[in-house]
């Protein structure tokens, strides 16, 4: 009843143009909002359509993990098969091998690539020469801007039998090592290249956080006789803790999706025993062998783990340190 009244009132206001509208005390209905801001809403048409087609349609397309999919037929699959494909990969030894490879590679990357930017940012923060600081920053950010294809190419060049690393090995009296053919070296090579590519750029947010720490805290600490190390431990680190927590949560969320493109470029069948991860396995069986439903089931499994990891990391950090993503 009240709704109709509001509408009537609106139509009346819309019809009689010159009377200045009273301050908007009435309910801000959709009809009203659309009439007033239709131009602004027209800005949303293309982006929302984009999200629907390229983000939400594929999300709904995950349904083929539960349905048999035939190329050329419906993109949502043909007949319901329940957890058939999930049982298929859970009972597959090959899947568990790539699963553990993913966990190990993700854990190594997190353990090494998460703390290093903090250390580097603290080191940069101790520099007095602004010029030198800027040079170090410029150089260390550079690898971030390279295509993964180039990074992979550089890795192959450095680790080849005649490459720099083997030149050093030979100079030290050893025999050249074919790094990219030995499963036991893959993780080292991968994590090293990740360090080279990401650590410099990773310092940016910490350096920004460092400039927001109140200078008076340091003065007070100095008066209390705290040395440089104690100042770092008791003021600097707590000061950048919120940044650390947020980045840690985000890193944990991408844990299962470890560098798909880079692993794909670096791996070869000789090193699958350590160098094959869920995402590359999924690519091989799902797209190259065209087992779409089976691959989607694995992908969905991976995405759900990622989501659960982010959400639980967020909850844990909110409870323990009071910082969270939202």
């Amino acid at each position, binding site marked *: 009843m009240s709704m109709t009244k509001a509408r009537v009132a609106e139509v009346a206001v819309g019809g009689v143009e010159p009377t200045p509208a009273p301050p908007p005390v009435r309910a801000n209905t959709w009809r009203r909002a659309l009439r007033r801001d239709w131009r602004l809403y027209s800005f949303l048409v293309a982006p929302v359509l984009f999200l629907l087609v390229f983000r939400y349609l594929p999300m709904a397309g995950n349904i083929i993990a539960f349905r048999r999919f035939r190329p050329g037929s419906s993109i949502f699959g043909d007949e319901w098969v329940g957890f058939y494909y999930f049982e298929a990969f859970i009972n597959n030894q090959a899947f568990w091998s790539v699963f553990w490879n993913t966990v190990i590679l993700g854990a190594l990357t997190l353990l090494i690539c998460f703390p290093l930017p903090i250390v580097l940012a603290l080191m940069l923060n101790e520099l007095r020469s602004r010029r030198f600081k800027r040079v170090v920053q410029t150089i260390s950010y550079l690898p971030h801007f390279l*295509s993964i294809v180039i990074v992979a190419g550089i890795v192959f060049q450095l680790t080849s039998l005649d490459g720099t690393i083997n030149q050093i090995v030979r100079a030290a009296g050893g025999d050249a090592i074919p790094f990219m053919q030995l499963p036991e070296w893959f993780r080292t090579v991968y994590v090293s290249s990740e360090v080279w590519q990401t650590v410099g750029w990773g310092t940016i947010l910490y350096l920004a956080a460092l400039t927001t720490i109140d200078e008076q805290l340091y003065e007070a600490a100095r008066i209390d006789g705290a*040395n440089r190390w104690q100042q770092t431990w008791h003021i600097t680190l707590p000061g950048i803790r919120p940044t650390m927590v947020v980045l840690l949560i985000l890193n944990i969320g991408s844990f299962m999706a470890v560098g798909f493109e880079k692993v794909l470029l670096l791996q070869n069948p000789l090193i699958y025993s350590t160098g094959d991860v869920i995402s590359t396995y999924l690519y091989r069986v799902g797209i190259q062998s065209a087992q779409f439903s089976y691959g989607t089931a694995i992908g969905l499994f991976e995405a759900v783990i990622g989501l659960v990891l982010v959400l639980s990391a967020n909850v844990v950090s909110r409870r323990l340190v009071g910082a969270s993503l939202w």
Partner: protein
Amino acid sequence: MVTDLAKTPDIVAVRTAGGTVKDSTGYRVFRVVNATVLTVICLVTLYPFVNLVAKSFSSEGQIAAGNVNLIPRGFNTTTFQAVMSDPMFWTNYKNTVVYTVVGTVIAMAITSTYAYAISRPYLKGRMFFIGIAVFTMFFGGGLIPNYILVANFLGWRNSMWAVVVPGALSIFNLLVMKSFFENFPTELEEAATIDGLTTYGVFARIVLPLSKAVIATMTLFYAVGLWNSWFSAFLYLDDKDLFPVTVYLRNLIAAATGSQEVTGGAGADAVQIGANIQAVTMLLTVLPIICLYPFLQRYFVSGVMLGSVKG
């Protein structure tokens, strides 16, 4: 917040200026060690690039003998000539330029209009429109549903659209632009409306001209991403004439390292020619980025900080 960042005095300098006299011996030692370690980090970071340049100008024999590290040995430019005389290289290079330009234009159109709309506090349903974007950061369709959509449903196999459209909206960039646009007060729009401008007029004549910094930054983010991207092209394109240069390079590396190193021994010559050519191709691919990088670096940094402050 943008202005806050800019106005923040150089705290590091202030702090250290006060502390100069009272440095303990231990801290002085630390500073020397610190500077040394940072110098070493820089040298190690730069080394692969230097090595790449050295290999580009070296002869195959010297590379094979493991003599090339910092300085070119057996100096020659024939490899450059060989790579640059390959018409396919230039076709693919041109494709990269086209994909980068088209992709960036599409992405900027979607991102800036979306960001502007959700930055207006009076937009009804604002939280919904923000939410549907942010949710896609944490959960997505995965490789295969996306592949089926693009290749089967939209039929974009061997089409430029498969490379430039699906990645056209980065939520991170969207949120950065949104927080920038939030600095424009609603009153500004009301004043402009009284002067006879519609929302379109306000956006085109007032908001965009005042947002050059953030637009430059976002354009760069998208452009570098597209320039460097390879996987969607690798996935959806079979026609060599359509490849971007990154896929050209990927195939070169795969041919030289994958097959050759696995078989080993035989065909060592081919591997060396490969190493040579790879280095030159990598250098030519990365050259535009390296050349522009020193000038553009501050835009990237400011973009990331902008995003972190309000995220």
